[in-house]
């Protein structure tokens, strides 16, 4: 099976490559600012001649390719607003990326990132950052990561976080925070300061307790909170059975405040990791 796969990737897929060039030429001809290059078998930017000079483009979609290296010159596309590099083999990003002045949406999901470049938090107007399904943790985020004040959605599902920095409170505009299926053991109380948060995905982690401040988050018909697949202490698990709004009310209560204080004195045992991450496709083999 695997031998067969290797053989296929060794032979240049001429039909797909020519398609990529065709798309580029077409776009140049009609001055199309949106480039769709998804699933074109691209392994390197070298297969896309002239792309880095197409200053007019506002969207570049390169998902489902085999790209390993992102050239620093990609940052020359200063009008780019949407950059989609989902499902590639990217292991490292250039430092220059965070200087892109108009980039609003950056999709790096399903790649092989073990770290982010220094200064990654410097994007001036980034609104949506998708880092789902990589190999990131709290130690490998860039130091200034939580300066991304303009962020409204942050997708960190399927990574290796055990803790989240209390600096998360700086992401004042955050409406969506996905931490699904990491190894999170504890959440900072500062998440309660994210007043605009309306989506919080915490499924499949190693959480036992929630800081009472989470109760400050507004529960409306527009909000989604996902708590399943954690090893919650019994009082939280019981409330969750009744429903999310019951849990949120409970977190706000004096009872829970006292309970939480006691658990802080005598912390519940940290549950073991729940999924075998060695099987993840994001791991370099």
């Amino acid at each position, binding site marked *: 099976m695997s031998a067969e796969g290797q053989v296929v990737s060794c032979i240049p897929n001429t039909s797909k490559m020519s398609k990529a060039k065709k798309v580029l030429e077409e776009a140049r001809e009609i001055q199309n600012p*949106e480039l*769709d290059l*998804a*699933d074109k078998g691209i392994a390197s930017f070298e297969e896309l001649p002239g792309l880095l000079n197409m200053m007019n483009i506002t*969207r570049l*979609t390169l*998902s*489902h390719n085999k790209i390993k290296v992102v050239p620093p010159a990609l940052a020359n596309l200063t009008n780019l607003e*949407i950059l*989609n590099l*989902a*499902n590639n083999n990217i292991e490292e990003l250039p430092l220059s990326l965070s200087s892109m002045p108009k980039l*609003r*949406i950056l*999709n790096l*999901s*399903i790649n092989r990132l073990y770290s982010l470049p220094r200064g990654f938090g410097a994007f001036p107007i980034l*609104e*949506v950052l*998708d880092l*789902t*399904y990589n190999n990131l943790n709290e130690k490998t985020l860039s130091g200034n990561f939580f300066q991304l004040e303009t962020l*409204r*959605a942050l*997708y960190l*599902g*399927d990574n290796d976080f055990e803790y989240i920095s209390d600096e998360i409170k700086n992401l004042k505009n955050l409406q*969506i925070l*996905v931490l*699904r*299926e990491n190894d999170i053991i504890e959440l900072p109380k500062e998440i309660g300061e994210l007043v605009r948060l*309306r*989506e919080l*995905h915490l*499924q499949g982690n190693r959480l036992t307790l929630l800081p009472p401040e989470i109760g400050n988050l507004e529960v409306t018909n*527009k*909000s*989604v909170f996902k708590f399943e697949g954690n090893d919650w202490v019994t009082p939280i698990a019981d409330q969750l059975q009744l429903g999310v709004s019951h849990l949120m009310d409970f977190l706000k209560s004096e009872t829970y405040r006292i309970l939480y204080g006691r658990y802080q004195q005598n912390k519940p045992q940290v549950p073991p990791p729940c*999924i075998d991450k060695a*099987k*993840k*496709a*994001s791991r370099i083999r």
Partner: protein
Amino acid sequence: MFPVNTQDLSPDVPNLKPFMASDLYHRRMANSKAGGLKYLQYGVVGSMSLNNMLCTRCCEGFEPNEKIVNSAGELWHQECFVCAQCFQVFKDGIFFEFEGRKYCEHDFHVLFAPCCGKCGEFVIGRVIKAMNANWHPGCFRCENCHTELADLGFIKNGGRALCHECNAKLKAEGLGKYVCYKCHGIIDDQPLKFRGEVYHPYHFNCTQCGIELDENAREVRSRPGFAANDMNELYCLRCHDKMGIPICGACRRPIEERVVTALGKHWHVEHFVCAKCEKPFFGHRHYEKKGLAYCEIHYHQLFGNLCFVCNQVIAGDAFTSLNKAWCHHHFACSMCDQKMNQKTKFYEFDLKPVCKKCYEKFPNELRRRLGKQHAAQQRT
């Protein structure tokens, strides 16, 4: 001739108890403020010559067989040893000395003893000095509940002596209440606000009809251009309504400048605000929902009509799904950015839309996991 012992020579001088046993002695000793008083007793004239003995009052000598009064070494004719006020012999031999003069008990009380601030009687025994007066312990009581205060202590509350309990009670009642700027009394009902102060409404009359005002009275700036507190006048509600001044739906005060009419009410320009951010619209467009007004941004933020991709207000038809909304032309697969429409089938991944083609390109491991979770969700 030898001086004689007065006690021996005066059988009609009464036999006295030791003066230390007297009530008065105890009282005076207890009250150190009554200094200058001495408690004396008839004494015995010691062995001294009758020739050089003189009466302390009249400075005359004594007859050989005369009864002589000896008081703390001072000698007196019996008829000279009398009250400085009534010139009567001291009853039971008890007297009080004040500033060198001796008084009988009655006159001493009349002249010097304190009078009770409640019953007007002399205070014999323990004197309570409080509220600038003297009191019998039994007469100094809480003005509210009438318990004795002598041993409990008291608190001055508006010129009244109250026990701690009653004081706390009254304080709690007065808490959070306004004090009338005119009579300084507590305003139990609604206060009337006028020129920046609060009053009992009944201190005022309507400028128009003269009726005594109640809390519904309205303050009206009588001449435009004057500062709010300078020229205001008060009108009763009836007269005010006849003047036709609109009332602000937010602050319930009359509107004398620009009037905004919206949501079926009138508003001060600066009081017509977004129900979320509370910023005034100042003529900008507002959006109404369930009787409330919102600014454009908060209306869409609250009621979900900002596009997830462009973060702009959605003009025209919106796609709403997965707790989000999209502009017609921004609704696309989150993986390949291919446009989708109502008919396109898509998968949900972290509440993002993923088209079928892209979902099939997900790593097997991830797909298996998502499949399991989906199945688990179906079961619950």
